[in-house]
């Protein structure tokens, strides 16, 4: 199928009922933001999976590419001093 017969793609983010951060759920096709919101509701959120929905035009997302693998993600592992593992968490601090 030729891609130009498809409606624009929107990425869908759902906030689960617990009040956590929005998480990527998938994508839908739609011709407008309102329609994208409704389609996201119908496809991903009609069984009580969410309390809030974001839809974002897929074209608005700037993503890293496989070429970025090295420079973006490699350095972390061989630079242990970047990880805060040498610090003791004081007693009484929670949620870390």
């Amino acid at each position, binding site marked *: 199928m030729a891609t130009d017969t498809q409606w624009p793609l929107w990425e869908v983010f759902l906030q689960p009922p617990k009040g956590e951060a929005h998480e990527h759920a998938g994508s839908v096709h739609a011709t*407008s933001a309102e329609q994208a919101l409704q389609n996201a509701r119908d496809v991903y959120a009609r069984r009580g999976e969410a309390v809030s929905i974001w839809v974002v035009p897929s074209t608005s997302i700037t993503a890293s590419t496989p070429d970025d693998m090295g420079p973006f993600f490699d350095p972390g592992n061989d630079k242990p001093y970047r990880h805060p593992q040498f610090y003791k968490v004081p007693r009484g601090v929670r949620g870390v």
Partner: protein
Amino acid sequence: MSNSPDRDVVRDYALRLGDDRLVLGHRLSEWCGHGPILEEDIALANMALDLIGQANALLGVAAGPDATADSLAYMREAVDFKNALMVELPKGDFGFTIVRQFLFSAYSLLQMERLTSSSHAPLAGIAAKAVKEAKYHVRHAGEWVLTLAGGTDESHARTQQALDELWRYTGELFAADELDRAATAAGVGVDPSTLQSPWHAIVDPLLERAGLEIPAVKAMQTGGRVGRHTEHLGHMLAEMQIVARSYPGASW
């Protein structure tokens, strides 16, 4: 179970409400696998399930010693159905389905909002749930009316044509009869004629925004409330009821 007039009024009134939703729900379900795009296919099926769920609850209220919700849905003849004619018309093209859904959902929303204060507790409870669903149906269908009417020349023409065909069936929704008056007097139901002006307040501005013209209709079509239906209902019921009638009492 007593045979008091009140019980008859509740039964007949719930049957009328249930039939509207059962028939429209089935018409919507005919889109399953045939929607214009996957997302809308799912949306139409969702709305069909909402309506059939409402019908199941309402026919449950109408059920009695000699009838269950299932037997009311699957064992009655067309003449015993009391739905308005609008909901039994064939699904037509997507524009027709959407325009009908918008016109009916706006009516249903107003009706269910009022029924939340029905003196009949089960009806009030069903209405409270249905209000949320109807609100979404109005929003979804309304958005589509705007999209289709504001789309290409062809989509605009088809949407206008759907409105031209459907408008003559809107009068029946608001025509109060003996049963409506009895149900209203008993505090059970809503006089549908009082829904007409709030309905116009929802429907007319959106149609205007969509650039659609409300057709001038001389005579409204009626008859569904007394069992005088179009030829289409019989065909629809034949398909809807065949499994239940071929295998009575089967469970799955």
